[in-house]
């Protein structure tokens, strides 16, 4: 019993790679949930940003704890660049959608079906 009690705090006390990964996993799931469930396109966009962030956390964590090193930093940077571009385009599209359909709810915009 004492063995177990001693174990847990130590596991908690030293945040390592796994901790960051778990954080990123949670962020990922939350982002996914936003993407999946929200009707508002902008909320979906926010979810995507969360997803990208969680991926970035992974990269940086691996950079710190494995041999990936600076390469991972650069990849993270490119992801950020991508996110910026994506956000700009996506919002432009959202504006267009809004002007076209007067709504930004995805379930009402289903012309893709035809």
């Amino acid at each position: 019993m004492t063995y177990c009690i001693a174990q847990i705090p130590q596991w908690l006390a030293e945040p390592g790679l796994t901790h960051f990964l778990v954080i990123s996993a949670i962020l990922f799931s939350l982002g996914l949930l936003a993407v999946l469930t929200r009707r508002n396109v902008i909320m979906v966009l926010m979810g995507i940003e969360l997803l990208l962030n969680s991926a970035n956390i992974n990269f940086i964590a691996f950079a710190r704890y494995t041999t990936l090193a600076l390469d991972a930093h650069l990849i993270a940077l490119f992801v950020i660049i991508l996110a910026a571009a994506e956000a700009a385009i996506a919002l432009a599209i959202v504006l267009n959608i809004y002007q076209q359909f007067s709504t930004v709810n995805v379930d009402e915009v289903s012309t893709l079906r035809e």
Partner: protein
Amino acid sequence: MDLYAFFFYFFAVLTVGSAFVVVFSRNIIYSAFALMFTFFGVAALYVLLYADFVAVTQLLVYVGGILVLIIFGVMLTTKVFSVEMKTGTLNLLPATLFTAIIAGMLIFVFSATDWNVVPDQEWDTTVYGIGALLVNEFILPMQVAGVLLLVAMIGAVMMAARDWTKLKSK
């Protein structure tokens, strides 16, 4: 529990908590602001991971750029001062279920895997290294990224500037 662990848990809770708000808040404005805290938290986590340059970039781009864009988007497409601020959900049950499974899966994989961790290395600032890499090995991706940003910018302007109502009336 040393200082590092403390900061880690603090920012971890900040990040995850505000992310929860982002996702579950019914008011989109709240979501947007909570997103800012998430980005902050992530930036702080980067710092904890010795990624100073990335952290700063995160702050500049996400908080300074993307978030502002998003908030603008919200303002432009939602009647801010009405009660209609609340946004609905769909597919809630299956989506939550799937997401839970995914989360479980991910966490299981991440924690069960025996990562090939190298012994703790102490780093100086990464700015110099990143700079060197950017103009050497990563020169092509950087150029491409630059072009991408340019294209995205022009494209966004073009799309956003098109006046639909006028087009329709014609």
